[in-house]
């Protein structure tokens, strides 16, 4: 990976960490805010990434249970971003690659994909069983 891409990786990881913090500071009523996810607006159903920002915000607030309720991968995303910033910085200093084996592994990708897909299906089933069609539509642009 080129140095330019490493800088960009650090920037993206930092943004992922900082943006939820800024939202937390600027919007104290985040729980009742309307989702801006295009999938949710279109179908009323959550997408695989829905709830991750709220999950990170509640992780920052120290409410781990609520954080995991919004999205089970929220704390993992934060951990991944912190590790990325750290490893990419070390790589640039030492001019060695430590991350490539994991970063470009198909096995890791398919495992993560399987975990995310399983979680998403479970969450969809729970969401549909706990909400009526009217409630689901209310969360979309059609309601």
């Amino acid at each position, binding site marked *: 990976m080129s140095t330019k891409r490493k800088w960009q*990786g650090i920037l*993206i990881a930092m943004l992922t960490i900082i943006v939820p913090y800024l939202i937390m500071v600027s919007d104290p009523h985040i729980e009742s805010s309307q989702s801006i996810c295009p999938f949710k607006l279109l179908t009323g159903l959550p997408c695989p990434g829905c709830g*991750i920002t709220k999950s990170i915000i509640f992780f920052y607030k120290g409410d781990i249970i609520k954080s995991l309720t919004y999205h089970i991968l929220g704390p993992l995303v934060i951990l991944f971003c912190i590790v990325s910033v750290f490893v990419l910085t070390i790589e640039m200093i030492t001019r060695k690659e430590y991350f490539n084996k994991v*970063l470009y592994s198909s096995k890791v990708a398919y495992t993560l994909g399987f975990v995310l897909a399983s979680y998403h299906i479970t969450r969809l089933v729970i969401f549909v069983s706990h909400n009526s069609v009217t409630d689901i539509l209310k969360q979309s642009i059609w309601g």
Partner: protein
Amino acid sequence: MSNSTLPVFKNDPIVVLILAVITCGLYLIYWNIKAAEVLNAVAEREILSQPIAIFSGCCTPVHLYYYYIAGKDGLPKLYERVGEPQKDQTVLLMVLGLIFPMVAAMVVQGEINKLYR
């Protein structure tokens, strides 16, 4: 690398849109991995990390980065291979990726399909 040795990932862009919507984004997880695999093969180096492609389904900044790399590094190599004039679709893909991720996937799928003509 000849086109016959590239991983085959040919889909009608409309099918990508329909599958993305009816599976509530589940299909896009798989699509992200496969598109990264094809673009890496076209470039003959690892430009898009497949694990990052999974995270891009969860996290907006990573999602934008995915389309940035696809537009800056992936598609130019693809145009080079199919003999088409270069065009920079990075901004379009990033904007679509932010507002309509399924439409951004359709655009990239349309370009990927050119490999299998």
